[in-house]
């Protein structure tokens, strides 16, 4: 949380104002960080889904589902901060740029994931089905990106290329802090979410026990 405050400070005050884009560029630090972390979130789902199918431990199912929820929330943040920045800079809220489309498709895939979970009552079945979808959805991402990339060329600024980074050192510092803050934020919420689900399970067990006694 402290880090978050620091990250806000760095993004809004510390980092120099971008020459052509002005203050709106400051959104970039959080936009990029959330984008980065949402991919981590979906990767966590992917990995947890595989582990679940191998071990069949309920814990991994909880991890996968919690991570998807966070990933979706972050995707929504990306898809709102992006247009706010894009409107003055590109002149349009939305373009059919590969990254935009891929993020949108991600959002669709994982919303379907949550809908699928909502439609199944039985626990193990829900875990199995969503694990399969978690794996397939993640494997699909690079192919979606490739095909949309060929379908329409990107106009995204590519600030970080192999080796050289086209950013002012202060900006880079701010980006790093924001990235760290958002990543920690993700793991913090993820663990809270997992704990919540475990507590729910516990409550369910207790209720069963009590009902049995009477």
């Amino acid at each position, binding site marked *: 949380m402290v880090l978050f405050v620091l990250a806000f400070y760095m993004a809004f005050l510390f980092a120099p104002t971008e020459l052509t884009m002005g203050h709106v560029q400051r959104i970039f630090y959080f936009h990029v960080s959330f984008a980065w972390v949402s991919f981590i979130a979906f990767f966590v789902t992917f990995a947890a889904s595989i582990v679940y199918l191998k071990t069949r431990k309920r814990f991994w199912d909880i991890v996968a589902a919690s991570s998807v929820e966070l990933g979706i929330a972050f995707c929504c943040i990306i898809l709102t901060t992006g247009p706010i920045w894009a409107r003055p800079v590109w002149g349009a809220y939305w373009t059919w740029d590969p990254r935009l489309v891929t993020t949108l*498709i991600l959002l669709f895939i994982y919303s379907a994931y949550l809908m699928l979970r909502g439609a199944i*009552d039985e626990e193990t079945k829900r875990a199995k089905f969503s694990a*399969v979808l978690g794996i*397939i*959805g993640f*494997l*699909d991402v690079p192919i979606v990106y490739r095909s949309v990339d060929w379908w329409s060329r990107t106009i995204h600024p590519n600030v970080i290329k192999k080796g050289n980074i086209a950013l002012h050192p202060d900006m880079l510092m701010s980006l790093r802090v924001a990235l760290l803050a958002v990543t920690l934020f993700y793991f913090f919420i993820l663990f809270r979410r997992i704990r919540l689900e475990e507590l729910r399970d516990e409550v369910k067990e207790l209720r069963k026990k009590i009902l049995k006694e009477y």
Partner: protein
Amino acid sequence: MSAYVKSILHIALKDLKVEVRSKEKLYSMMVFSILVMVIFNFAFDPGADYISEVAPGILWVALVFSATLGLNKTFSSEKDQDCLQGLMLAPLDRSGIYFGKTLSNFIFSLIISVMTLPFFAIFFNLNFIDSLPQLLLVIVMAIFGFISVGTLFAAISVGVKRGEMILPLLLFPIEVPVIIAAVKATGMILDGRMMVDYSMWLKILGLFDVIFLMVSFVAFDYLLEE
């Protein structure tokens, strides 16, 4: 190994036999596919110049929608009289059911696609007789990619409340690469371009087909248990 292949063929053959006798799937898929094209035509001025640019997209929307219609039926028809239970009790590997079902769905959708083409040519006033082999290649690859994941998801959606609504929601986002590649390649073929121009789209289709056939093959084992 040959016994395995035989059992796959048996399942596919069973589906085809059921279809020949009941004729419930192909008719509705065919009518639906033509209907989609007709409806789309209303969205554009008749005889407009840009129609040849949007035509490939319309063709694929029609094919993909009608394929989804068929996929929805593939396992739900087995639910009747507990046929699915019977299939699972049959002495064959679970993946055999997947491949058999994929094969029969693939054949259905392929039949529909091939039968849709003449209507497509007439409605949009297109002449693609010369490039028919290339077009068929694209159709085979794209439909296969669509069906391979689609059959897997159909197995998921059949065990789920509101399954028929969930299937397209699961399927379409995943199939985005297939649809883009198919539309682009079809457009280029109708423009009379060379194979080199659209070979990258064929590569995407091939890649998708291979990856998701393998993943589905592994994943299917987990879906039909109990």
